[in-house]
């Protein structure tokens, strides 16, 4: 029993059994494919179909109702396979090239010497591969080798034809079922011949194979080398990003910025004192967390990326994860930027608390200046700009020891000499700055013509690393004689009055015409002068 199918050829209806139908369909498809390049393809096929209809009718004369495979095969035999139509002539070739628009450029590894670039180009341009190779050689010679670079570029850019579809596209043949079927049919017909010819073919291809073998080896070698280099780079990135992450994690633990580790003491002593941050109304732990996050997220992504680079089979990072981390990073950066702008917008101003002491020495009295250090706090009592958290004199509380004491000399037209003692500090507004300056504990001692300054001040330990200090401005009228102790050396900011000596200490000086004249050392100079004579 067989299923029958009704078909309509040239407006005639026929009953075909299933196998006959398939055979006929294949035959007509093959003709269609064969005539694909023919101008009047449709018309020819109509004529052929009309003839087939006639032949069918001839076979229906008796009581026969259904056309079977035998009939179809007989008709195909009469009509002939499309290959037997003998259409190959010049016309045919010209139509062939006209249809080459659909061709795609692939590397033809099968016909290659090196990479198949030339063979692919030859297919594409519809010329023999020999000419393409010759053109390469000539161009390379004429450009002293520069064309090799273009060749390599093409090698990289043009994909290799791997699938049958790509191979058909490479040669400009339409990719349809009947074409592939045709190929298979041709393959069947020629199978026995093929096997006979294999050996001959092998020998003729021998030389070509050696060269292309070498180049495919080279191609593989370069790819492997590239992969190895990539892995090495991956290892380096992995190590550096890993170390960075570890560093950030450790500092997070150390500072307690994340708030999880709670040690406010530690962060107060270090990052907590970043000028401006705490004062901009932002809690320090938030700022530090944001800073660490902003640093950690790119490192984390780079770390994962390098892992992926090293292990190809690693599962890819999920999109939500990337989106989340990047969003967090953007938020951190935005927060840091806003905080930064906020705190930099606020101006620092200084606040001072001033004492002015007028000195009324008797005429001709010399003013003696001296610093007083305190060895309880430091072993370098006469060094300026030292800061330390120390115990106070009662060894009870921690205080800040600071030796930021500046001494400056000025000339005054007033009758009396005076000293301006200014304790100063910086803050966002004057009142706060003055308040802070008021916390500076500074002492000095003036007894007649003996003036003794402390070389340091004491203040609250929380002001470490903040700018604050004590300025001592000494205003002197003309003809004042002074003598400074050498322990003042480090604290004097303006030496320009003392032009005569490198170190104007332990000598008597008289202020005359904007200059200190050394009174006591004149004699010495004379002596030296005498000796020289």
């Amino acid at each position: 029993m067989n299923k029958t199918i009704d078909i309509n050829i040239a407006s005639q209806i026929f009953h075909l059994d299933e196998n006959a139908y398939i055979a006929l369909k294949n035959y007509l498809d093959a003709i269609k494919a064969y005539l694909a390049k023919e101008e009047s393809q449709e018309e020819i096929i109509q004529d052929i179909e009309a003839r087939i209809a006639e032949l069918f009718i001839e076979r229906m004369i008796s009581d026969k109702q259904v056309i079977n495979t035998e009939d179809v095969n007989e008709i195909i035999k009469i009509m002939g396979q499309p290959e037997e139509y003998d259409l190959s002539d010049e016309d045919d070739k010209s139509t062939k090239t006209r249809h080459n628009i659909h061709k795609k450029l692939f590397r033809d590894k099968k016909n290659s010497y090196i990479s198949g670039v030339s063979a692919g180009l030859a297919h594409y341009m519809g010329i023999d591969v020999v000419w393409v190779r010759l053109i390469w050689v000539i161009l390379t010679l004429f450009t002293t080798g520069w064309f090799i670079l273009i060749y390599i570029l093409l090698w990289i850019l043009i994909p290799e034809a791997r699938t049958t579809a790509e191979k058909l596209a490479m040669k400009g043949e339409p990719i349809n079922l009947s074409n592939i079927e045709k190929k298979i049919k041709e393959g069947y017909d020629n199978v026995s011949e093929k096997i006979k010819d294999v050996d001959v073919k092998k020998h003729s291809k021998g030389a070509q194979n050696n060269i292309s073998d070498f180049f495919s080896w080279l191609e593989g070698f370069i790819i492997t080398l590239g992969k190895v280099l990539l892995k090495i780079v991956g290892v380096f990135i992995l190590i550096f990003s890993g170390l960075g992450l570890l560093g950030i994690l450790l500092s997070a633990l150390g500072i307690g910025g994340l708030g999880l580790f709670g040690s406010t003491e530690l962060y107060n002593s270090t990052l907590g004192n970043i000028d401006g941050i705490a004062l901009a109304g932002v809690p320090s732990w938030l700022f530090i967390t944001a800073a660490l996050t902003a640093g950690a997220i790119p490192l984390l992504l780079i770390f994962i990326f390098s892992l992926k680079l090293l292990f190809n089979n690693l599962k890819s990072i999920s999109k939500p994860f990337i989106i989340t981390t990047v969003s967090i990073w953007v938020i951190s950066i935005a927060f840091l930027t806003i905080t930064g702008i906020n705190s930099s917008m606020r101006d620092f101003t200084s606040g001072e608390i001033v004492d002015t002491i007028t000195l009324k020495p008797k005429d001709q009295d010399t003013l003696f200046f001296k610093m007083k250090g305190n060895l309880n706090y430091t072993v370098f009592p006469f060094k300026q700009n030292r800061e330390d958290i120390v115990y106070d004199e009662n060894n009870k509380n921690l205080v800040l020891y600071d030796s930021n004491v500046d001494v400056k000399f000025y000339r005054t037209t007033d009758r009396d000499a005076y000293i301006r003692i200014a304790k100063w500090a910086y803050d966002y507004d004057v009142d706060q700055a003055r308040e802070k300056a008021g916390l500076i504990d500074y002492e000095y001692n003036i007894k007649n013509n003996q003036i003794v300054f402390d070389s340091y001040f004491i203040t609250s330990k929380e002001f470490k690393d903040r700018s604050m200090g004590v300025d001592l401005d000494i205003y002197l009228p003309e003809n004042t004689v002074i003598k400074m102790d050498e322990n003042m050396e480090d604290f004097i900011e303006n030496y320009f009055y003392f032009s005569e000596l490198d170190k104007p200490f332990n000598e008597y000086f008289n202020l005359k015409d904007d200059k200190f004249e050394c009174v006591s050392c004149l004699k010495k100079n004379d002596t030296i002068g005498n000796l020289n004579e």
Partner: protein
Amino acid sequence: MYVSLFKILLYEVLFDEIKNEIMNIENTKAQMRKGILEYCILSILKNNDAYVAEILVELKAAKLIVVEGTIYPLLTRLKNAELLEYRWEESTGGPPRKYYKLTDEGTKFLNELSSSWKELQVSVKTITTKNNQS
């Protein structure tokens, strides 16, 4: 499926070049045969119009064609070259038939072909008989 694909690949690798060479020889033969066939078709249509089956009967009888399919592209080309024209005629119990007819151009072309064919025949005969004698 994979076996078939493999066969295609094998075919491509081994036979493309050989096929090209054979095609060149085949091409010449085909050209000759095609020219003669065209001449014969025009000759058949010289005295009376005919439809494909009738033309085929004569050609087959003269053993000029083996498969019928060959004729359809040829007829279409001759028609496109305006050497032939056709009219439709109904047939009893079959599809309508294309009756082919020579155009004036076709008649002229056929006459030219005939004379050159005769000349060619004489030339070929002269050479072949001369060579056969010696």
